[in-house]
């Protein structure tokens, strides 16, 4: 493209790096010092004495349990999405029937429904089903709200499977089921990993459903732990920020390994 460097854009992007980086820096250095050091030296200074006590204390204050709960919720949500969405996307791409078209439009409509809009009825339904204050009560609506985006991503990927391959397998007399698991699924691997990453992110970071649908300490997920921690010990900033770091650690690890899948998936959501 342009050989001449664009200094203005370069400068702007550095400014943004500062905006993004500064709070992350403050967070990280705060967690490695004692509360007294942090208060004394201010948020921008580097720790004099390095300590991991903040992390250790957080973990002993229940964050271990919250982690376990969040892992359970995340695994279940991903499981439901991965079992239900691929057949749906397959039907949307390969079935010309009117009913399937309607289902697809229903999911597109669902993209626009914010979870707050339905939180009262969801609370009602979960309560009626006797699932209030249980992990499964969080799992069900969270999985449902991950579905529209997952369906959109996966139909996009499955449409790219060339029609000749379908034709060839059909001529060989393959059943829809065989075509699904011998052709469609293997060729949709990138899309599948995207929806896994995407729905696990949704589940891991979910806030509203846990807030409204659970109550007791043994069913707390990480985001709830963080929220309560802030209300209870809001003044112990190093401990609070250590909890924030703990809550995001797994996500950052996933990001390191699955950056491509995640970025492609998000690009697909907005770009098309």
């Amino acid at each position, binding site marked *: 493209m342009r050989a001449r460097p664009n200094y203005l854009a370069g400068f702007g992007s550095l400014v943004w790096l500062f905006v993004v980086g500064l709070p992350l820096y403050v967070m990280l250095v705060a967690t490695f010092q004692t509360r007294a050091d942090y208060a004394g030296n201010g948020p921008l200074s580097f720790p004099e004495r390095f300590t991991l006590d903040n992390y250790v204390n957080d973990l002993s204050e229940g964050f271990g349990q919250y982690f376990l709960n969040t892992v359970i919720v995340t695994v279940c949500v991903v499981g439901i999405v991965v079992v239900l969405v691929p057949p749906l996307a397959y039907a949307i791409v390969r079935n010309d029937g009117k009913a399937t078209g309607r289902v697809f439009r229903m999911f597109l409509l669902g993209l626009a429904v914010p979870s707050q809009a339905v939180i009262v009825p969801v609370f009602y339904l979960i309560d009626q089903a006797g699932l209030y204050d249980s992990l499964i009560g969080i799992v069900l609506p969270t999985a449902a709200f991950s579905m529209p985006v997952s369906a959109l991503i996966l139909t996009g990927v499955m449409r790219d499977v060339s029609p000749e391959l379908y034709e060839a397998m059909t001529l060989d007399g393959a059943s*829809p089921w065989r075509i699904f698991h011998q052709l469609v699924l293997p060729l949709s691997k990138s899309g599948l990993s995207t929806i896994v990453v995407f729905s696990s992110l949704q589940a891991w970071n979910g806030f509203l459903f846990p807030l409204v649908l659970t109550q007791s300490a043994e069913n707390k997920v990480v985001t709830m732990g963080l929220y309560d921690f*802030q209300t209870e010990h809001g003044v112990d900033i190093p401990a609070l920020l250590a909890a924030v770091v703990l809550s995001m650690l797994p996500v950052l690890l996933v990001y390191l390994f699955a950056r491509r899948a995640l970025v492609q998936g998000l690009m697909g959501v907005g770009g098309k």
Partner: protein
Amino acid sequence: MTSSSTVGRPGFAWAVPAAVFFGLFALVPLLLVVVLSFTRWNGIGSPRFAGLENWDKLLDDPVMVNSLWLSLLLTVLGVVVQTPISILLGVWAAGHQRNRAVLSAIYFVPLLLSITAVSVLWRAVLDPNFGVPSQATWLFGDGNLLGVRAGAIGVLVFVSTWQFTPLHTLIYQGAARAVPRVLYQAAQIDGAGTVRQFFHITLPQLRNSIVTSMILMVVGGLTTFDTVLILTQGGPGTDTTNSAYYMYQKGFKSFDFGAASAIALLLVLVATLVSLVMVRLTGYDKMRSTMEGV
């Protein structure tokens, strides 16, 4: 299409499990919220029909009316602040040098964090006694940003920008990469500089993405909730009580689920209306065929 037969094609049944599951937790509740908005229900026992009572009360409720204005204000400010930043960053990141890839990877981090984590983080960073304002008094004065109306609104807009700019940057980055090179080559032959190329080629080519991104911002802005709950609790006073937060308060704090449902419904209606108007005004609906490249 050579074969119009259904041999080897999946039947409707393949779509049923997902459709039922999704319908149960998204569409049934959407209908139910309409019903509940005409009832009185405190969370225990069953809802009782109350006619237009909730709606009557809400329309006379000054906090409700203010909360709606505030939601719109937060949305407009969000769009105005985020759009230019993310277009510029997105177009810049669409280039191919190595440092761009590294920087874009860093820019992306806020999007990965939960809104909870981001809000807690910013509350700590902006803490008037222990946070950055205590060190940078030249910028923040005595620094209790969240204690005054303008400051609290500013912080809410800023924190959303901080978190969601990466998403919109990504949208623009993808779109900017898809702009045909020929256009730039032609412009260069005509002697157009970087700035003219940006305004005459890049921006018009990004039109579809601008609408997509703005609709996401509008729906996101109108439903801002977690940041309000954690950063301001709707305060000072009710200065940052937007509709989403008011709904939560009405329902899950005052146990007036009928009123909460009415607010929720109102939010959906406003969000849908705004999106539709945007789609119409920009002619987005007529451009459908060009953007459905799938």
